[in-house]
């Protein structure tokens, strides 16, 4: 029996391979995700282990505001220089150094643009001399305040050489230095993990990177021979008291690596999410393939039953087939996943500016994930067809069975119930009634909705397919094709449903993002009364910033009526973290942003006063006159009095601090500037003058309000594009499904096709018939996808109404494109099956059994 199963499997290897391909792709995503995160994780470990290789003990201040990797670079509390002297006296310390080392040193390249980072920090530091790790490749160390050295990768990226005058942006606006040297790392490396470094003399580094003299980021110590790092750590900690974080170098490396890996787990989750979509689509396809194969094998299975096979043995044989397909697909998928994971890790390394990627490793999670997912999905998908197979009566072996049309009542009722559950979950999730499980509830709702709609499709398919087919019914082959696509509603439905999933997700996501974009941009253009905006596009963890002097100079330009610079920082306010803003010109709140006061006075701010949005005020139970304690990234906590409350909107910040607070922000420079012109002044007259003021602030540009809004909202385009690319894969899998279903249908109808040819249907007509069938199926799938996607998207948009997404934008042109694409896809998918159908040998087909 096992042998009979395997032989029949071999005889159908092509069609099983096609359906197995969907599983292969899903498994590839799963194992690829694990391989990628594992490889990158080990690469980071190596980077940090390297960076702290000659540090035995590290002393650092506790950060005032702890940030996660996604929120930006955390500002460490500086360690006073006196601590360095104290550490030097601890017994067991051979050598101790004060290290200045902070993110945010942006070098301006020879093209006048800042060398951008897409993730790795841009460190500004004090030059500590050469070591086992660091060696000067050219020039000498920085001796004077106007001199710097940079690492080789940065020199290459900026296209600067020793002797050049180069600009650097730090906490202070642009300053010029002479590049006196270029350094590299052991092993001939230009950078460690894509990190770029600008090294100043110690006093300059302290002033520009930490904002105060005589402080360090950390103090590193090396132990004397015979002292272990751990015992030295305890000794130093004992000497300093509990005010500082004292760790061994190994510990610091591990902690730093762990915090980066947290960011990686996000990538992992995204990839696994797409794997889930691919697998969902794959499940539909496998279900379909096995159903068709079981239908085709009816006589064979009945024969087995007639000669004594039990129902359970028939189930076993179908499931065994599934296991074999699942195993093969898992192996192939795992192989492909390892390849993809390695490739992505390599690309990531390149993009991150030369991260040395660790050797390829296959974590157990990748293997376990691949096989469990591949096997489980295939077997689950094959169960239903297997059950159906076991119900084939042995007598079917002796009859010419046309598969009877089973009634659709049960599927339809089931579909309605499942759809209702999905809708219910969506309602709960989107309505915010699911508490902590909101995301899971929404995802579950989407999944149920898809399966429910898929179950309903057989019923819908009858009228819709016949309507779609009517377009082609003007010719005999068209008419036959239309009848064929309507003749097995379940098969048509599942094939179309597979296509629906991908298209619905893309459409849904587009509806949500387009609606958000349009809502925000119309709100911005309607409310912001600025004619020019100074801003830049953010690429790394830090928003672009510019010289605050530009604000004052711009204010004096003829025709300029009002100028406002916006600053931001993550702060701890009354014990909870929140984003705070500061404005160089508080009056702008009313005059530029049209914000209305709900209490107090919002037109001015004393140095010890702040303003709150109405939402923040009510959430924190504060009112005018309340006092709040604010701990910014730097400096000490301060107490402010609430002097005014303004109406919240999509565009307002939770709270606004006076300009005097800015010097304690992580970035004490403005990140956006708004310029209002006097009535009658032309934008074109003022814009070039502001541009000239920004010559030393290469991270930003000045644009009119419309362009600014477009620039801001277009930040949503990147995630949209990524989602579309990844979901295109789900759509591609579904297209494979159409090819597969058609190919199987053609095989199944060999006899009928031969008959048609025998009575005079020409080859071309045969091909047209198959093509019409394919186009009808794929159009049906696309139509379902567009409708379901718009529905899901609209539901989400409605739920986000309170979040300010007030407009519902349906991507009509994209939906139209999908329908046109579906037509093309149908034609393409039909090529092979159609050729095959046209080649059918008329005589052979009629004798076909």
């Amino acid at each position, binding site marked *: *029996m096992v*042998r*009979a199963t395997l*032989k*029949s499997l*071999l*005889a159908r290897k092509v069609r099983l391979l096609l359906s197995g391909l969907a599983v292969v792709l899903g498994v590839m995503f799963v194992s690829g995700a694990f391989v990628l995160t594992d490889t990158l994780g080990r690469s980071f470990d190596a980077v940090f282990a390297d960076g702290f290789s000659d540090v035995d003990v590290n002393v650092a201040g506790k950060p005032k505001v702890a940030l996660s990797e996604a929120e930006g670079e955390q500002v460490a509390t500086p360690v006073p220089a006196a601590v360095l002297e104290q550490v030097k006296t601890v017994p067991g310390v051979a050598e101790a150094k004060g290290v200045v080392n902070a993110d945010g040193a942006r070098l301006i390249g020879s093209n006048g643009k800042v060398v951008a980072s897409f993730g790795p920090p841009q460190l500004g530091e004090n030059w500590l001399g050469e070591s086992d790790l660091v060696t000067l490749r050219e020039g000498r160390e920085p001796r004077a305040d106007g001199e710097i050295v940079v690492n080789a990768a940065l020199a290459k990226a900026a296209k600067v050489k020793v002797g050049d005058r180069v600009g650097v942006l730090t906490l202070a606006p642009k300053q010029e230095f002479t590049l006196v040297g270029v350094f590299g790392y052991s092993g001939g490396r230009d950078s460690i993990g894509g990190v770029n470094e600008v090294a100043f003399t110690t006093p300059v580094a302290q002033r520009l990177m930490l904002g105060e003299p005589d402080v360090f980021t950390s103090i590193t110590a090396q132990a004397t021979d015979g002292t272990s790092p751990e015992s030295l750590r305890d000794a130093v900690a004992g000497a300093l008291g509990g005010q500082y974080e004292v760790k061994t170098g190994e510990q610091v490396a591990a902690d730093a690596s762990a915090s980066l890996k947290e960011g990686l787990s996000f990538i992992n989750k995204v990839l696994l999410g797409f794997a889930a979509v691919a697998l969902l689509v794959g499940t539909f396809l496998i279900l379909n393939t096995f159903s068709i194969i079981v239908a085709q094998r009816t*006589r*064979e299975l009945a*024969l*087995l*039953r*007639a*000669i*004594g*096979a*039990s*129902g359970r*043995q028939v189930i076993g044989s179908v499931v065994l087939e599934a296991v074999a397909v699942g195993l093969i697909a898992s192996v192939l998928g795992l192989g492909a996943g390892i390849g993809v994971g390695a490739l992505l890790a390599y690309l990531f390394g390149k993009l991150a500016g030369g991260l040395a990627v660790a050797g390829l490793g296959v974590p157990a999670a990748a293997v376990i994930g691949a096989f469990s997912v591949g096997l489980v999905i295939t077997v689950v998908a094959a169960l239903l067809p297997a059950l159906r197979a076991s119900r084939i*009566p*042995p*007598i079917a*072996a*002796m009859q010419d069975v046309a598969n009877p049309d089973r009634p659709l009542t049960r599927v339809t009722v089931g579909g309605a119930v499942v759809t209702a559950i999905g809708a219910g979950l969506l309602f709960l999730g989107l309505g915010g009634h699911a508490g902590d499980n909101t995301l899971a509830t929404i995802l579950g709702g989407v999944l149920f909705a898809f399966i429910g709609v898929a179950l309903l499709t057989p019923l819908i398919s009858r009228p819709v397919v016949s309507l779609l087919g009517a377009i082609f019914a003007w010719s005999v082959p068209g008419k036959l094709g239309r009848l064929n696509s309507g003749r097995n509603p379940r098969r048509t439905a599942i094939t179309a449903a597979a296509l629906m999933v991908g298209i619905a997700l893309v459409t849904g996501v587009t509806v949500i993002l387009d609606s958000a974009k349009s809502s925000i941009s119309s709100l911005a253009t309607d409310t912001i009364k600025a004619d020019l905006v100074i801003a830049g596009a953010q690429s790394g963890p830090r928003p672009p910033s510019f010289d605050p002097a530009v604000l004052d100079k711009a204010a004096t330009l003829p025709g300029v009526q009002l100028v406002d610079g916006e600053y931001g920082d993550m702060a701890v306010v009354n014990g909870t973290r929140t984003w705070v803003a500061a404005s160089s010109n508080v009056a702008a709140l009313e005059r530029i942003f049209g914000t209305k006061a709900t209490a107090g006075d919002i037109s001015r701010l004393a140095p010890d006063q702040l303003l709150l949005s109405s939402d923040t005020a009510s959430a924190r139970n504060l009112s005018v006159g309340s006092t709040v304690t604010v701990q910014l990234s730097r400096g000490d906590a301060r107490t402010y009095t609430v002097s005014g409350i303004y109406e919240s909107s999509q565009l307002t910040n939770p709270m606004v601090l006076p300009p005097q607070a800015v010097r304690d922000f992580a970035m004490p420079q403005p990140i956006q500037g708004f310029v209002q012109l006097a009535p009658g002044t032309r934008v074109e007259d003022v814009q070039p003058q502001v541009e000239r003021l920004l010559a030393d602030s290469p991270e930003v540009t000045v644009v009119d309000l419309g362009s600014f809004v477009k620039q801001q909202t277009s930040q949503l385009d990147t995630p949209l594009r990524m989602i579309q690319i990844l979901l295109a894969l789900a759509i591609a899998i579904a297209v494979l499904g159409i090819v597969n279903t058609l190919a199987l249908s053609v095989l199944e109808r060999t006899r009928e096709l031969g008959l048609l040819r025998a009575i005079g249907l020409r080859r071309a007509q045969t091909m047209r018939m198959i093509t019409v069938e394919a186009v009808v199926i794929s159009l049906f799938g696309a139509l379902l996808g567009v409708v379901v996607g718009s529905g899901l998207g609209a539901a989400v948009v409605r739920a986000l109404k309170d979040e300010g997404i007030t407009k519902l934008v349906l991507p009509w042109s994209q939906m139209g494109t999908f329908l046109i694409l579906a037509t093309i896809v149908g034609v393409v998918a039909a090529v092979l099956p159609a050729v095959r159908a046209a080649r059918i040998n008329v005589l052979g087909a009629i004798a076909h*059994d």
Partner: protein
Amino acid sequence: MTATVGQQAQAAARASDVWKVYGSGEAQVVALRGVNAEFERGRFTAIMGPSGSGKSTLMHCLAGLDSVTRGTVMIGETTVTGLGDSGLTKLRRDKVGFIFQQFNLLPTLTAQENILLPLSIAGRKPDPAWYDTVIDTVGLRDRLGHRPAQLSGGQQQRVACARALVARPEVIFADEPTGNLDSRSGAEVLNFLRNSVREHGQTIVMVTHDPTAAAYADRVVFLADGEIVSELIEPTAETVLDTMKKLDTPAEVAN
């Protein structure tokens, strides 16, 4: 006129007052009306009758492939009527063999694998001596590794016969086994079936339209309109033809 047959010998299969009604209301078809028949051990019985007379239906009911509307069917000591799926499966495994007119073999398996399939489904090993005897009787030793598509119709049918025999079932049912074959391959298959009855005591029930084929049997049962109307012992092609002619005339008058 209902035939009563060989009560004295032990019956391998028996139908007692078997009725089979298909459909209901307007579309109702009575395929069998109270059939009583016994098929003795070690005998070769042919069932004949006009098209639509219920031959296949009777055979399906006897073999437990189809349920009867009324009456009882027995195979050996087993009452087939009322058996559940597992009982029927066991029956097919141990007690009955089938030979069909067409689609008899799994196209993906070789001749040998096809022959051994019922045994491997039941998880049994073939008796090597008996297997050799069967293979030699069918004369397929040099074709065992071939696929059905590489065999002629007659050879395929001989493979199907070997498959039915190798499990030594209580009774083999054959529905027009020679219907698709020319007279020479048909004769080969029929000789082979008769030999297995004469030499190895196999019981065979065969449905056929062909008087020459029926002449290979020990006995012929005639069906008309779902009833057994006549029978012949030790038939020859002529006596069978005569009986068929006789049966045709009253039937036409009755219409």
